[in-house]
């Protein structure tokens, strides 16, 4: 277990370094002079020079990269050029919306997909199974931002159950905040739930064919009992992989959904920063999203080892 952990940790650190190098290269090296790029065509040379000094662009590329990474390790993500505030606080504020949204959506995804997948697998080849498969086929084809617009049309404009957008802030009560995130979370979750349902179904069907499931049935358990006592845990490995991927997708995909509901999350921050050419902010948000993906994959790998002891040895 220890050697497995060290190996995984080493590859985690390596991935993070290479990913940060790629992001740094695209944002700070490819445009040539980021200061000139950020200020636009009509900037005076002395303004550009001043910004260069302010952003610490005078050093060599390598020095700048090292400076950026060591800064991030200490929680210093630089200062936004447009807002003149530390990027770390800006991002932290926005994360209070984007992260709960992703978690809420992930929760809904699992809550929909597990029962649907189990239902379909235990009725394999019957009408209920085909119904679920057909529904997932359509669910996968629906763009989440379009579904979000339809939800607004039905539940906000026509029924007036929810507001069409905006966020009241967590300080006005947890339930108010949760309510504002409900439609966005549902919109994000539906297509992902369709994917997860299919994975759950096929993984469970694979397990149902195993010998130990036949033994469980032979000793007198019903199909349902056998699935819940022995099937689920064994079907969970591929499901966990997908859940990991989905969390990363929900965090990144939330960026688009935030636009639909005018939520002041990471999405709005990043799009504003793109149009204001605030590269410092874009760089940090992208690094954060990539960090989230890599971290999630790492945690999923660890979770495997917990669920299935055999994997500890093999890796």
């Amino acid at each position, binding site marked *: 277990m220890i050697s497995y952990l060290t190996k995984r940790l080493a590859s985690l650190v390596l991935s993070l370094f*290479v990913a940060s190098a790629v992001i740094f290269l695209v944002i700070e090296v490819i445009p040539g002079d980021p200061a000139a790029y950020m200020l636009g065509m009509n900037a005076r040379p002395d303004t550009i020079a001043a910004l260069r000094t302010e952003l610490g662009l005078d050093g060599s590329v390598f020095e700048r990269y090292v400076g950026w990474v060591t800064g991030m390790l200490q929680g210093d993500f630089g200062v936004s050029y447009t807002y003149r505030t530390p990027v770390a606080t800006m991002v932290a504020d926005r994360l209070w919306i984007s992260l709960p949204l992703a978690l809420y959506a992930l929760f809904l995804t699992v809550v929909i997909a597990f029962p649907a997948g189990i239902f379909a697998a235990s009725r394999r080849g019957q009408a209920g199974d085909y119904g679920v498969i057909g529904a997932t086929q*359509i669910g996968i084809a629906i*763009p989440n931002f*379009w579904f979000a617009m339809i939800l607004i049309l039905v539940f906000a404009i026509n029924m007036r159950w929810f507001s069409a957008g905006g966020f009241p802030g967590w300080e006005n009560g947890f339930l108010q905040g949760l309510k504002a995130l409900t439609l966005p979370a549902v919109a994000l979750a539906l297509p992902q739930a369709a994917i997860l349902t299919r994975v759950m179904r096929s993984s469970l069907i694979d397990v149902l064919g195993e010998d130990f499931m036949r033994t469980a049935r032979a000793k007198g358990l019903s199909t349902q009992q056998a699935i819940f006592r022995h099937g689920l845990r064994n079907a969970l490995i591929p499901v966990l992989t997908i859940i990991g991927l989905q969390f990363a997708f929900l965090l990144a995909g939330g960026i688009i959904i935030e*636009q639909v509901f005018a939520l002041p999350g990471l999405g709005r921050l990043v799009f504003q920063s793109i149009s204001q050419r605030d590269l410092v902010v874009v760089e940090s948000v992208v690094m954060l999203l990539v960090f989230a993906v890599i971290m999630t994959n790492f945690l999923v790998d660890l979770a495997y080892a917990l669920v299935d002891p055999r994997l500890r040895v093999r890796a």
Partner: protein
Amino acid sequence: MTRSQRWNWSLVIGLALVSVFAIGALISLFWTPHDVTAINIASRLKLPGQGYVLGTDHYGRDMLSMIMAGAQTSIAVAILAVGIGMALGVPLGLAAAAGRGWLDELIMRGNDLAFAFPALVIAILITAVFGASAVNAIIAIGIFNIPVFARLTRGAALSLWTRDFILAARVAGKGKVRISAEHILPNIANLLIVQGTIQFSLGILAEAGLSYVGLGAQPPTPSWGRMLADSQTLVGLAPHLALVPGLAIILTVLGLNLLGDGLRDLLDPKLRAVRS
């Protein structure tokens, strides 16, 4: 099993849906019912049927014409993105399987890294530096496709390399490059076609999402995602502005997914038996 029925319904329905949009896109290259960019305020926000098959938008532009021209954008972006993914991913996967050792390790670690960048994040990076355009959307989705094809190719190629006919080819004196091109590639072509259809459908969805948030095709290029973005504030007033492009996306993606399933059945019956 019911799968052995004579008609491959997935293939038929998928092909029909995809054909409708492909033909619409082709026709729009030289003819649309109305001028896509013509603004006609007098007949704005017409519901479907009132002189216009699918109605008009807030500028009085014909929705059917815009859907046809938008199909062109969607299909072009998605096809080119799949092309990029295949053109770079397949050779990388072949090389990893043929070379093994450090080359394999290097390519697969690079792959893992590329998986950490969702298409949207790549698009944000590219747009922040080069500005938004349909070309950048193609590049972003294309880069996202590379590891998908590399991983698939490597996996399939690795199992082929252990087969007797490959051994025969090696004994005959063929090099690794020649074996990859002449024996491995033809044997995984079916797999690549099926995956290509799936990536095609994902590309349509990604393109719509990117142009919805303004990272894809720019005006005046018609695009389904931008039509949805334009309809956002009017959705209560004229729901068809959101319904029509949305249904176009759903039907195209559904068609491509069904087509992929159908092709899998058609090209490799064994796969279907194993899968479900």
